[in-house]
């Protein structure tokens, strides 16, 4: 059996410092077991005999970092997560984007920045479809470009496959939407091609440079910054602000806020929902 020496307290502190400085992931002093339970598989895979060697290996090979981050974070997600966010989209943001499109803007670009297995991007694609039909402007739906990215290659693979089991499909999705947008296949639910085609998925690490992704009208950055230390959050929101067009909007998870952070956004609210409009200098 391949094995690795148990993690010592000294090694834990070294790895904890490294995780916060290079991945922004903050561990509490009593979370030593998390390092050992989540990272042992990777440590053994790369042939480390102990966690000091593992520590040296991740410094020497930064390409291992996305694997580390993936192992330390969860992929949990739901359809239409947080009602208030989707009400804001339906009642405020989509009408604003429709106006922009009608006024001649060629397309609206949206980024689901930690898309996990696709529910966030696909929820938006479904909502856009519904709202366009309600307003009798179905052709506008095709002018939304939705990009989903995640650090987990497995989550991206599952997002592209767009097939869900009955438990996963029920988390946040109404029966009506399920019947309308999915095809049932032997107890699993396959999202229809017309909605699948609206979302493109790419592997991407939020620690990297965002410029190649281009400029967006709307960014979902939900339930991912929760893992990051304050400095990393500020850098992340600063980088998102740069990729937003003037008037561009960022959405956070319902339990998240920019409170006490230095970030170039103005708080806006609609009902119980908060959203964040970028402040462009100059």
């Amino acid at each position, binding site marked *: 059996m391949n094995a690795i020496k*148990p993690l010592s307290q000294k090694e834990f502190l070294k790895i904890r410092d490294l995780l916060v400085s290079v991945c922004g992931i903050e561990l509490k002093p009593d979370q030593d077991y998390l390092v050992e339970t989540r990272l042992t*598989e990777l440590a053994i895979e790369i042939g480390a005999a102990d966690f000091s060697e593992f520590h040296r290996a991740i410094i020497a090979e930064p390409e291992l970092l996305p694997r580390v981050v993936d192992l330390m974070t969860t992929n949990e*997600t739901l359809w239409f997560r947080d009602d208030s966010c989707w009400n804001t989209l339906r009642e405020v943001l989509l009408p604003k984007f429709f106006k922009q499109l009608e006024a001649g803007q060629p397309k609206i670009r949206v980024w689901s920045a930690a898309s996990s297995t696709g529910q966030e991007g696909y929820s938006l694609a479904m909502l856009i479809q519904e709202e366009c039909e309600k307003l009798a402007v179905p052709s506008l739906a095709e002018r939304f470009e939705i990009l989903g990215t995640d650090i987990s290659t*497995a989550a991206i693979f599952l997002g592209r*496959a767009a097939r*869900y089991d009955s438990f996963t499909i029920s988390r946040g999705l109404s029966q009506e939407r399920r019947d309308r947008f999915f095809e049932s296949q032997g107890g699993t639910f396959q999202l229809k091609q017309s909605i699948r085609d609206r979302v493109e998925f790419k592997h991407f690490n939020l620690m990297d440079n965002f410029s190649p992704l281009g400029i967006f009208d709307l960014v979902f950055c939900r339930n991912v910054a929760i893992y990051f230390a304050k400095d990393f959050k500020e850098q992340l929101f600063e980088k998102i602000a740069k990729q937003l067009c003037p008037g561009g909007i960022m959405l956070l998870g319902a339990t998240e806020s920019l409170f006490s952070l230095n970030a170039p956004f103005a708080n806006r609210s609609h009902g119980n929902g908060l959203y964040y409009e970028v402040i462009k200098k100059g």
Partner: protein
Amino acid sequence: MKTILIIDDSSSLRRIVHEALNILQFNILEAGNAEEAMAVLKVTSVDLLILDWHMPGMDGFDLFLSLRDNPQYTNIPVIMLTAEDRKDSMLKAIRAGIRHYLTKPFTHEDLLARVVQVLKLDLS
């Protein structure tokens, strides 16, 4: 097609895991205890075990130890999927050689992502 054996004494849990895995193309087998699992392993070549810890009779941890020490089975990857979330138990499992440990309640996203990685499915 890869074969996955789910070992759990709760038939409803086996059904939930079975359904979650069904979205990908796998041959999925089930066993309700260690003895049934051994019987399956004797006649079928299995690519991955999804193993509960607390089961009547031989528990999942002891089953893992006996498979680990048997050259015929030692290379089968194991994902331990268990309600056992005490720090000491988790460390005991990892130190005994269980590489992948998920606690119940689990999310299907996390289970599937693990399975995809462990089986090194072609992600392109």
